[in-house]
């Protein structure tokens, strides 16, 4: 018995496919051009610049290989900036997610006052970071600020120099950073909590689980994707810290709040050392990539468990 093998036709369908593909290509072209010009090309360009002694507008930018990276390795100010950035990121991520989870749990039920409080907590998130920084700078000013004035009224003789002290400036910026972003975490986690079926809680109660047991055995596992998302976002934005310290402390006093991006800005846009600034940007990019990958891997392993 003869069998007939159907060969895939190679003529007209392919032509049709190519026609459709061409039209689609034209439609995505503007987006591709925008991404290529404003994202891809600068990324490649910055990698190239980091291998040169590159100054804006210089007649020549000699190739120096990995010299900028070697200088960075021996640059104590860069290591200080990295230390500041990592402390800020760790503290803000823990504080923001922990506090966001606590507030979301307390405001889970929708009542008029919980709605009011949700709005109040979320409001700082929609305000500009620079505006927030400037307002807090005024509030914390030891001479004209409200906070030290209140402390003075309460009998505190020498109120803390919040942003002038090398030991207090970074913790103060961290607290403001948590206050600014905790509303976002709260909203995401609240949305996650709303998705947990009420049946699960009823079943847990029938099994005799108390509030804390219901929280750890039902709520937290259900919130794992939302927690991963908020942790990842808080980590990445923490590592990119710039606006808040720029507005509140300009990186001072004595570099005690200078972040990596702040240092990058100083080198690139104040001293015009774009090659060195590009090397800093690439090191930061690799750090963010590594931290994000570790977080995702840990989360996946737990999901596997």
């Amino acid at each position, binding site marked *: 018995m003869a069998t007939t093998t159907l060969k895939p036709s190679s003529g007209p369908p392919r032509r049709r496919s190519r026609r459709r593909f061409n039209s689609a290509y034209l439609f995505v072209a503007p987006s591709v051009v925008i991404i290529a010009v404003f994202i891809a090309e600068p990324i490649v360009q910055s990698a190239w610049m980091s291998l040169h002694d590159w100054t804006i507008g210089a007649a020549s930018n000699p190739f120096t290989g990995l010299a900028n990276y070697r200088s960075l390795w021996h640059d104590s100010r860069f290591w200080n900036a990295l230390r500041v950035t990592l402390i800020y990121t760790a503290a803000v991520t823990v504080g923001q997610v922990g506090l966001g989870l606590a507030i979301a749990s307390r405001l889970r039920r929708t009542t008029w006052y919980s709605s009011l409080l949700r709005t109040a907590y979320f409001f700082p998130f929609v305000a500009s970071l620079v505006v927030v920084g400037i307002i807090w700078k005024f509030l914390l000013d030891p001479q004209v600020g409200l906070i030290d004035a209140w402390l003075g009224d309460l009998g505190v003789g020498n109120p803390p120099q919040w942003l002038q*002290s090398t030991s207090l400036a970074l913790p103060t910026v961290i607290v403001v950073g948590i206050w600014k972003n905790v509303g976002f975490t709260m909203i995401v986690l609240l949305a996650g909590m709303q998705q947990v079926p009420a049946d699960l809680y009823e079943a847990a109660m029938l099994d005799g689980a108390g509030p804390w047991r219901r929280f750890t055995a039902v709520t937290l596992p259900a919130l794992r994707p939302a927690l991963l998302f908020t942790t990842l976002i808080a980590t990445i934005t923490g590592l990119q810290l710039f606006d808040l310290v720029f507005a509140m402390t300009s990186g001072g006093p*004595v*570099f005690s709040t200078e972040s990596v991006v702040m240092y990058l800005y100083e080198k690139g846009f104040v001293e015009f050392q774009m090659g060195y600034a590009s090397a800093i940007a690439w090191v930061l990019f690799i750090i963010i990539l590594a931290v994000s990958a570790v977080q995702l891997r840990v989360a996946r392993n737990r999901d596997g468990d």
Partner: protein
Amino acid sequence: MMIINSRRRAACLAATVAAAALVAGCGNNGVASTSAGGVVQLTMLTGFTGPDEPSYQALVAEFNKTHPDIHVTMTAEPWATVAQKLPAAWATGGGPDLATPSSDPGSIFNYIKTNSVLPLDSSVGTGDDQIQSAAFPTAVRNAFTVDGKLYAVPANMATLVLYYNKDMFTAAGITAPPKTEADFIADAKKLTVSSGGKVSQYGLSLADNNTIQMWPILQWMSGGDIVDAKGCGVVDSAASVAALTQWSQLVIQNHISPIGQAGADADTLFSSKKAAMEINGPWAAAGYKSAGINLGMAEVPVGSAGPVTLASTVPLMIERNGPHTAQAEQFLAWYTSKTAQLKFSQVSGFPPARTDLGSALAGNATVSLFAQALPYAKLYLAGLSQSTAIDSDVYVPMIQQIERGANVQSAASSANQQIDKLTGCTS
């Protein structure tokens, strides 16, 4: 088939429109000069966004009125914006004809290094239509001359004086502003008022960051300095360390000034009547008067090293590859002429950027006060290509450290090593 073709045409049209819209975002930044109807149009980018902007605009308007064949348009943007856009604009030949790159005179080195600023020697001379650089204060002329070539003229000239609150002086029983460093210290202590362990009034308002520098004056008074003529650090010299120790102890132990103030904070403290004295430039006078302060102004007190204060000047330069450099040079010659500088002083309250207008200023007490300090005023880190880095990476952190109790000798020694590393000093 007709429908498919129409759709394809529509798709192509949509994509073309999108691409055109994208490309339309690129192009000239609108600051290049043009010639229109025989009038050469020049553009000038400055950072004069403060209350002194109208004074500069008035000077430009006067030039335009007296030079019908040239029209200068001055724009003012924040210094940070100017610093970000000008290097690339001039390097690519698309920037303004004239610009003040920064309030820091040392910034000219960045533009000389990139070969984007025009040397002015061909138009320097003694004629009325030439740039009379011999009349500039020596410190300014030296700061703007690199390898024997003049690259900038002073867009303004300022010296710092002592502002004081007359009411606070009267309340403290002080009848006259301090003349000597010893009086200055005694008055600062006497004018500092504390109650319940909290300072309610400071004798002096000192800033240590984002400010026109005040601390170098305190060092210069006693013969200290930061960098010598060879570019070597001298901030750890005996005189410098003694001065820094004395003033840091006055801040730490006697609380004559708050610590960690930015320039704006220091101004606010004085204008809100919480400090009795401040060292500042002519731009501050109007704000203090409008704040209702019974304002007094005097020369900076004299220390063991003789009279000294800080001079400040903003460089005004021409783009090297601009299309109308001859007209731009003509503008600079007029801008720094006797007539223009006299008018500018009268309008702005700034001293003129020339040293040959003495008697012409006699009628204006404020301008005279600032002008009489010109012969002994010193520029901060003048003539150093690494001045920006020395200021932000070394000097400011050192002052912040000693204000917070760090050992002055070791902080100064460490700063000295960093300065030598930056300047390449080996002696």
